[in-house]
């Protein structure tokens, strides 16, 4: 009985993964790797907290197809990202661009860290001077 149940479960798991995979063929293994990494980096415009790989909304399916087509057509990763940004804005990028608008996002933590170090040193010097007195 238990054996049969296990069998059933494994079969079910197999069917599930088979259904989840879209039937896509790539000209090379590199293309497939590029596809996988791009759909992980691009955000689904409809569902906000999912990437294209995770989402099954209509637009994500379309955009995955578009990424696949563009890779197979010989477009570079940058060209594909530019294509997405002109249509959906920088919103689709999970990795924010390094522009003046995102300066604080990228360097804010380092600025805060630097401030902390300066404060630390100042406090240290002050207490040392007090002790000498």
């Amino acid at each position, binding site marked *: 009985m238990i054996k049969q149940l296990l069998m059933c479960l494994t079969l079910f798991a197999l069917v599930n993964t088979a259904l989840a995979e879209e039937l896509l063929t790539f000209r090379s293994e590199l293309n497939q790797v590029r596809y996988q990494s791009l759909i992980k980096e691009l955000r689904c415009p*409809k569902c906000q907290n999912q990437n294209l790989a995770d989402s099954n*909304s*209509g*637009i994500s399916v*379309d955009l995955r197809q*578009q990424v696949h087509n563009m890779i197979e057509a010989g477009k570079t990763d940058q060209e594909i990202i530019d294509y997405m940004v*002109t*249509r959906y*804005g920088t*919103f689709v990028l999970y990795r924010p661009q390094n522009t003046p608008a995102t300066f604080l996002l990228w360097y804010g933590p380092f600025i805060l860290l630097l401030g902390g170090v300066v404060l630390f040193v100042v406090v240290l010097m002050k207490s040392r001077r007090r002790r000498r007195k």
Partner: protein
Amino acid sequence: MKRILLFMPFLVFLVLGVVFYFLLGKDTQYMPSALIGQSVPPFQLVTLKGEKLKQTDDLPKGSYLINFWGTWCPSCHVEHPYLMTLAEQGVTIIGIDYKDQQTAAKQWLRDKGDPYALVLMDELGQFGLDMGVTGAPETFVVNAEGKIAYRLQGVLNAQSWQMIKAYL
């Protein structure tokens, strides 16, 4: 000097409070279109009725709306009566039949009335991608200069129209 330092946490609290207060009640789902201020991207689409090929030049000269819809989309059922009202008020609406079937779309317009000045078929959703559409219904406002001025995701109704019509 020491005393001012003691007030620092309070100052930080005040600044953060003000910032957060102004973010309250904002729609977190709202996403401005990347195409605001730009012209409608070039296209070649076939009309739903008569199957004629239309291009960017065939778009109206004045201001108008571009409405993405489909018979498969439940919210489009909700939206349709209001589009009829707008059309009666003389608003030009271009319909994009998004990822839909021609026969079903024709039947829909026969049953519910046709508010559109022109209906183009985007069967594969390629024009939808070029417009940065995330689903249906979605409505773009194109102003008299031919530039995209506003994008509404979701149902166009009397409430959202109050906000949109200023962009027309």
